[in-house]
């Protein structure tokens, strides 16, 4: 019966001619070819992306690495009490120390069997006036007088550049900064081990130096500036952003007003950062009278910029929590707020944290608005006195510092800028890794 039904029920249809499954028909071949082509395009795109990434990394690292090293003149030196007293009694105290240094330098050359002709001026050009450095040292550490002290004195930026390849011998034109013959001495000293390469701690810990002293420039102060800004951004944007999102997503009635707010938040995320900068300048500095160049103001401006990002990502992760969880909570008689805080928010947490960290990372790399509120690089002249003043004292931030360096005339600042980029990237990478770890840690199945 059933068979009969099936037989009569099936409409009479012309059967396809027999085709073996072992041979591909034209249509299938074309389809497969299209698919293969598409895959090839995709792979090519990925490879192109990878290529550019590699180029970027190689150039950043090769350009930036020299910023982390510097050439120093290493010299054993012993200052006797008599010499100290004598120098301190003279009118040109640093000049006296300079004299001692030249003596010590001669001695070191002799010990290592280096025979080069030079005059004091060459030394000035190679390592600058070291008398001041020595005097400061002995004034600060009087107990070291009479003992042998190893001095590591940074060479001038040109010598630095010569050794790390930035400066070619044939490009050197004699000037008051460097003469071509000086490089012979430098080479000799290098071979004798008096000039050698060293890790540039100053770059990590130092503050911005003057335009004429690239060797003394460091990014440390700007890192601190950025750090204070991030504290402000995190402390303001996370609670405000999350609270806003929860309200809009879970509690707000759906009407034209909330729609308007929503549209505006989305649009705000696309507003160029410089607009926020000028807003910060007008509102926080000119109107509210907050100190210029302060990380507090920078943080406020970046908070404005980060908020849309955090709100959008938080709302997305709240939306991603399945409604069944909300239903379950409401179903057992939880209030709206209990359902949100006991169930929805914990599930949305990984997304919220990731969004926040991505937002912070964006803020960390932001330059334009900072320039407008005066957080330019050369402001970072030192560390804040205390934690609290760290918010209000004029400082710079990493990207602004990098921008300032890149804009300077002296070519050795250029490599500082690249070095700064490496530091910045390290921070961003760390933050992203933290985001990934948090995501893994908090992620739960439902």
């Amino acid at each position, binding site marked *: 019966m059933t068979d009969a039904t099936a037989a009569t029920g099936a409409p009479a249809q012309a059967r396809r001619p027999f085709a073996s499954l072992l041979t591909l028909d034209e249509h299938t071949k074309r389809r497969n070819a299209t698919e293969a082509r598409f895959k090839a395009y995709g792979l090519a795109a990925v490879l192109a992306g990878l290529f550019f990434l590699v180029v970027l990394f190689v150039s950043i690292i090769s350009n930036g690495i020299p910023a982390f090293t510097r050439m120093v003149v290493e010299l054993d030196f012993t200052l006797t009490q008599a010499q100290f007293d004598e120098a301190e009694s003279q009118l040109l105290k640093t000049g006296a120390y300079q004299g001692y240094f030249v003596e010590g330098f001669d001695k070191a050359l002799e010990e290592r069997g280096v025979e080069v002709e030079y005059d004091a001026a060459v030394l000035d050009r190679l390592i600058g006036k070291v008398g001041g450095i020595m005097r400061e040292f002995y004034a600060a550490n009087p107990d070291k007088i009479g003992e042998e002290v190893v001095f590591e004195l940074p060479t001038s930026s040109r010598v630095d550049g010569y050794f790390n390849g930035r400066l070619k011998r044939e490009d050197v034109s004699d000037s008051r900064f460097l003469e071509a013959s000086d490089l012979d001495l430098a080479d000799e000293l290098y071979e004798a081990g008096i000039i050698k390469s060293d890790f540039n701690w100053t770059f990590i810990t130092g503050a911005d130096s003057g335009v004429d002293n690239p060797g003394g420039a460091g990014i440390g102060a700007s890192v601190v500036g950025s750090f204070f800004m991030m504290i402000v951004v995190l402390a303001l944007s996370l609670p405000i952003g999350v609270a806003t999102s929860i309200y809009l997503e879970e509690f707000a009635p759906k009407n034209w007003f909330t729609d308007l707010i929503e549209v505006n938040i989305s649009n705000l995320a696309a507003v160029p950062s410089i607009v926020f900068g000028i807003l910060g300048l007008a509102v926080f500095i000119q109107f509210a009278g907050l100190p210029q160049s302060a990380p507090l103001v920078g943080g406020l401006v970046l908070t404005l910029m980060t908020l849309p990002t955090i709100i959008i990502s938080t709302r997305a992760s709240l939306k991603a929590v399945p409604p*069944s*969880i909300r239903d*379950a909570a409401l*179903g*057992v*008689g*939880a209030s709206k707020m209990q359902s949100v805080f006991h169930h929805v928010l914990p599930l949305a947490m990984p997304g919220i944290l990731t969004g926040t960290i991505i937002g912070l990372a964006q803020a960390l790399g932001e330059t334009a608005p900072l320039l407008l509120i005066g957080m330019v690089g050369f402001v970072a002249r030192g560390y804040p006195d205390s934690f609290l003043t760290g918010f209000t004292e004029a400082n710079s931030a990493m990207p602004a510092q990098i921008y300032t360096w890149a804009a300077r005339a002296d070519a050795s600042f250029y490599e500082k800028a690249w070095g700064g980029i490496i530091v910045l990237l390290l921070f961003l990478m760390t933050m992203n890794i933290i985001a990934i770890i948090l995501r893994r840690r908090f992620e*739960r199945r*439902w």
Partner: protein
Amino acid sequence: MKTMLTEADNTVATVPAAGPRDTKIKARKVQVYYGDTHAIKDVDVDLEDKAVTAFIGPSGCGKSTFLRCLNRMNDTIDVARVEGEITIDDEDIYDKKVDPVQLRAKVGMVFQKPNPFPKSIYDNVAYGPRIHGLAKSKADLDVIVEKSLRRGAIWDEVKDRLTAPGTGLSGGQQQRLCIARAVATEPEVLLMDEPCSALDPIATAKVEELIDELRESYTIVIVTHSMQQAARVSQRTAMFHLGELVEFGDTKEIFTNPTEKRTQDYITGRFG
């Protein structure tokens, strides 16, 4: 001979009824609007205490919507508007003085998809009693959790792993955990929105058996797409179509001799 048979039928009919049952939930002229859509039209129904009432009807007929009126879950949908009168124990649940949260403690709900919280089995069940302050101490809570899990007919399967996540159970176990979670708050009414639609036949049978046991203590309303399930578990059946209550009566009657042609066509698989 014939007379004898009819008499036998009558005796069978009176067994599940066990005397007249009280009306627990009364709905009069209930209307539900979703924005401009008139989702429920003029529904009048009396749901009996200690009995299972099944809501059947084709998709989009409003049976789930009506179910969600009974514990005001529709409140969470902004555009939904409920008119008419629904009373539980003669108290209007849409009265301004009624807090829906308090209502939902009294009217528990089990959903279509098993939706345990991503927490431990223990915490899943303990959550309701905790937020309603039903347990004075940890020991009290332990007692409630065990009792609820027993009521949910899942105690034996989970008693050794109460700290394991509820989401790690099988679908049927999850659904029984959700039922245990619902009964933990000591509700009087249990609403079930297609509780077996995501379960395999064995798990379905277990849940149906459980529903039959729970009938002794609760007023149970179940929405189901499976006519057979409605026939198996319920004493009364309400048939919805296009937002109207087409027919409401004894399940036996509906499945052997429905009065309305729409019911007849729907349950025999002729809806078109």
